């Protein structure tokens, strides 16, 4: 049995235009300590899926089983990193991380909690920015604080929702390496599920890539293993044969799904045009 098992997961939302089926019959297995990336286009239901896995929302049908227990809410050994930092602006970097530590280790003394929070920030290179408020930090630094907050709780499972999506390309590269180091530098492995729209990022960080196909409703494509030695660098990935192969594979399955999605639209387009024309014609005449 896999560490994280997802079976027949479906989720829909009511909208004014009717029920929107976002996910349908999603199946996924993630092994203990594995880093899996779910890659898909914007609006493909990625974030919904991650919220379900993390227990932030509950599915319409289907089950998520983590470490042998069904997921019904947010687990105490799980951590989350959001795209938009999600730091509290009235707290300093240290206090933001400490809030996570307090929640994860309620029994620890105040000194111990402070030490853990400080160490976590030092590990992401923010040892000199402990007392700064989020608005005094750059986007990259803010997301480092988010990473520190997630890792300070010593999670067994990590959910990353487009963690670097809001950053510029250079900062993004630096933070990807930070994340890889944080994952590698732990005593016990952290099982990670990351959502991203960047194939490159997925190849750099993951053991396995799962494409999200034809949303909505989205389902998952066949997974593609990334068997590259670590540490990996972007420069090395650009020329590596394995990486090229994985990239081609992911891109192929994603474009196939996008084409499937767009075909009925293009077939419908001429009809809509011809219907509009006669209605327009009497106007000028």
């Amino acid at each position: 049995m896999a560490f994280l098992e997802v079976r027949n997961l479906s989720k829909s939302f009511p909208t004014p235009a009717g029920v929107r089926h976002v996910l349908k019959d999603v199946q996924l297995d993630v092994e203990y300590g594995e880093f899996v990336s779910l890659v898909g286009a914007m609006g493909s239901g990625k974030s919904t899926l991650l919220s379900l896995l993390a227990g932030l929302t509950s599915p319409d049908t289907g089950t998520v089983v983590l470490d042998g227990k069904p997921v019904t809410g947010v687990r105490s050994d799980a951590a989350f990193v959001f795209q938009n930092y999600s730091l509290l602006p009235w707290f300093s970097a240290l206090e933001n991380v400490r809030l996570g530590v307090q929640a994860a280790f309620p029994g620890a003394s105040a000194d111990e909690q402070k030490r853990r929070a400080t160490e976590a920030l030092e590990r992401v290179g923010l040892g000199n920015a402990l007392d700064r408020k989020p608005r005094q930090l750059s986007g990259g630094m803010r997301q480092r604080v988010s990473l520190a907050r997630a890792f300070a709780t010593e999670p067994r499972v990590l959910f990353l929702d487009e963690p670097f999506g809001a950053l510029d390309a250079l900062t993004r590269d630096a933070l990807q390496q930070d994340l890889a180091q944080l994952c590698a530098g732990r005593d016990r492995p952290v099982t990670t599920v990351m959502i991203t729209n960047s194939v490159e990022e997925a190849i750099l960080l993951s053991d396995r890539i799962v494409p999200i196909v034809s949303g909505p409703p989205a389902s998952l494509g066949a997974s593609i293993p990334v068997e590259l030695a670590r540490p990996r660098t972007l420069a090395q990935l650009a020329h590596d044969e394995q990486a090229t192969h994985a990239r081609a594979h992911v891109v192929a399955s994603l474009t196939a799904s996008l084409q499937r999605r767009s075909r009925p639209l293009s077939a419908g387009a001429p009809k809509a045009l011809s219907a509009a024309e006669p209605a327009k014609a009497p106007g000028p005449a």
Partner: protein
Amino acid sequence: MKRVINLLLPLCGIGMALAAWWAASVAVPDLPSPVRTWEESKLYVLEPLAYRGESDQGILLLAYYSLMRVARGFLLGIAIATPLGFLLGVSATLTRMFDPIMQVLRPISPLAWLPLGLVLFQKSEPAALFAIAVCSMWPTVINTMMGVRAIPQDYWNVAKVLRLSRTTTFIKIIVPATLPYMFTGYRLSLGIAWLVIVASEMLTGTPGVGGFLWQEYNSLVYAHILLAIITIGVVGFALDRLMGVAEARLRAS
């Protein structure tokens, strides 16, 4: 140059208002002119803290009585309004339950509440506090409620993901996120409390700026009515400015 203009323009406005006042005093013989008002009031202004008896006190002393009464009524009001605002902000059920009654109570004038207060408490002082509290609490209730509702989903996610307890979520997320809204509410509430004080003092005849105004009207010293009106305006303006500064400090931190 710009500074001079910035100073000159308000002075021009004040000058024009004084001119209008003077013109009115020429047309209505009972209305004292600005100069006569000053002549008859200067004792109260130049000895603002003098106590010459219950009905004859310096203007600052009178303002002080009114301010103390306002402070107590206002604190009572926001002590009820703030928790109420939080509850209504968090719970949609409570909002639906109490929104109609709130909308009905909100537009009721202090003059209507005061007799009810006198019936309830038998004495004028608690009745005045009751009227101030009941009239001034609504902006705080509504702003606090709005503040809670305006908390971004991100912050709720933080609470959810970190599995914060209800108490921790309240102290570390809901209160700080709502604070600026709350203070806007306090500022508006204080403004209303100051409006109510005059009416309640006039009706109950308690010492204070409003009481003084009514007493001097009854003794036909019309210049002192104008003195009281100007004092009420200046103090109200100062209060609003003070709350504005506090609010700005809060938003900046």
